[in-house]
């Protein structure tokens, strides 16, 4: 037995009517995962697009797992799936959109600087390939210059913040494409 399209529809409806943030259902090889991020910070006029309140990921597919694991959890934050632990000056990673994009996010509130000092070349530019240990920017907290490392390999697709702007903790700074 597997989930019918009607089952999936009713599950999605039930999920949307609920206050849950996440729901995964695996039945006989069919897996259904629903997740919704939390509300973005209120009133924040953040430069980067806030996480959507609509379901972010809806995946229905065949999974190798045979056991029917059913779970639900409700988170408060708009956090991405668990990322590997990282030191303070290394960016948190989050899986991006379905096209395989990666994001480098701010490890702290602070000012975003693309160069080691005014007038110097940028740490990275769009189109550039970076490795996990490469410094991609500085987030300055009260004269303390935190060098942010990419944490992952990829090609810079876009820079999401203006040089010198304030960034919040967790705000997306760079979007990268997976290195092919």
């Amino acid at each position, binding site marked *: 037995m597997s989930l019918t399209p009607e089952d999936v529809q009713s599950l999605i409806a039930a999920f949307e009517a609920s206050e849950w943030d996440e729901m995964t259902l695996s039945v006989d090889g069919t897996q259904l995962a629903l997740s919704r991020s939390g509300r973005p*910070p209120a009133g924040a006029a953040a430069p980067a697009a806030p996480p959507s309140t609509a379901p972010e990921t809806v995946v229905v597919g065949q999974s190798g797992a045979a056991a029917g694991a059913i779970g639900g959890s409700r988170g408060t*934050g708009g956090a991405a799936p668990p990322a590997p632990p990282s030191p303070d000056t290394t960016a948190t990673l989050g899986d991006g959109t379905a096209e395989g994009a990666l994001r480098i996010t701010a490890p702290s*509130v602070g*000012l975003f600087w693309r160069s080691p000092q005014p007038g110097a070349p940028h740490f990275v530019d769009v189109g550039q390939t970076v490795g996990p240990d490469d410094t991609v920017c500085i987030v300055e*907290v*009260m004269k303390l210059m935190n060098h942010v490392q990419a944490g992952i390999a990829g090609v810079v697709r876009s820079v999401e913040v203006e040089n010198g702007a*304030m960034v*919040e*903790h967790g705000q997306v700074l760079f979007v990268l494409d997976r290195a092919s």
Partner: protein
Amino acid sequence: MTLRQVLVANRGEIAVRVVRACADEGLRSVVAVSEADRVSRAALVADRAVCIGPASATDSYLDIGRVVAAALGTGCDAVHPGYGFLAERPELAEACAEHGLVFIGPSADAIRRGGDKAVARELAESLGIPVGEGSATLADAVQARAVADGIGYPVVLKAAAGGGGRGMVRVDSGEQVSEAFARATHEARQAFGDGRMYLERFITRARHVEVQVLADRHGGIVHLGERDCSTQRRYQKLIEEAPARAVPEDIRRDLCAAAVELCRALDYVGAGTVEFVVDVDRGIWSFLEVNTRVQVEHPVTEMVTGIDIVRAQLTIAGGDKLPVQQSDVVLRGHAVEVRVNAEDPRQDFAPAPGLVSRWVEPVGGGLRIDTHVFGGYRIPPHYDSLLAKVIAHGPDREAALDRLDRGLAHLVVEGVPTTAELLRAVLGAPDFRAEHHHTRWIEQEFLPEWRGAPAA
């Protein structure tokens, strides 16, 4: 130097309280939140929220650099530290000054001198304020033994840098002094980075009474009467009242005068509290410590005086004179506050974070609810367990207690256990109604009976 926009460097109910005061004063507010508090009531009601770091307080609410960066980055001109976290860290006041921000509180110097228990105690003594039968900072265990022998046992060893019940060790006999001193010093060094100790006579039936003070930058200073915070469990206040009806009026007058004198000597600016211990049996009192911030229990004073203490903090910080003179401060009726925590009193008060699936507050009847909780709120496990302060005002203590009991009965909380039922039992206890309680009454007398076990 009128304020325009305030960074609220705190969370929970006090962050909501400060946002409210800002709105009342026509100021914009920005709340600095950790990642765990992005969807918090403070974030939702403020004009803006800015995420400063991860859930861990060390990298968010306790990080002075991030707080100041958030204030500067969002164009704030002042920082309100609330209580706890950075509220009594002189370094925050200094960092604010350095970056052109108004710190809503006293000067770094006043925080330092008022917050160091040994220094404050010496200052009080120099002003002729009783400091109890105790010592100055102790050099070593030998001196401690000599002083303790002089006072008579039991005594209590206290960390100079401690407060709120932390860093205290009771010593019942001379033989225990040496070992207790070593342990207490070690613990104080670990907890506060400062191992200096002093000691005091241990009072068996003590009442904790504190005086609310307001002072402006122009030399104006008033007290707003006193509060009785004797209903405690493990040195944590459960219930606070104003005025301290059980304390004789002449003592209350002396406490208020002493508090004003002490704050004047500290060149204090803003809202502060001077704590005293009153020895019920002997009818004497002594200075305990200064809290250089707004207190959790400030609402009871607001309700009996009609003065908004948090708004006064804002106007004082903006350079205004005090809104009242001492003669304008008139106490009306009685007010009582309880702290409702997400704890299970049947499981040794284990904190119980989780989803508050339903939250409905009582209405009317002299009640005030200060809270950050709403239906659907998930209490994060990283911080304290305070859900709400329920405060009742009435023409007298009995009426206020009855109103508070009604308020607790109609506070609907589903999803997490709370201390509401326990608090109702305390409010109804004959000893509490008759004001026979003291700072260890909850632990020694009330709880054993409430648990259905014979009293220890």
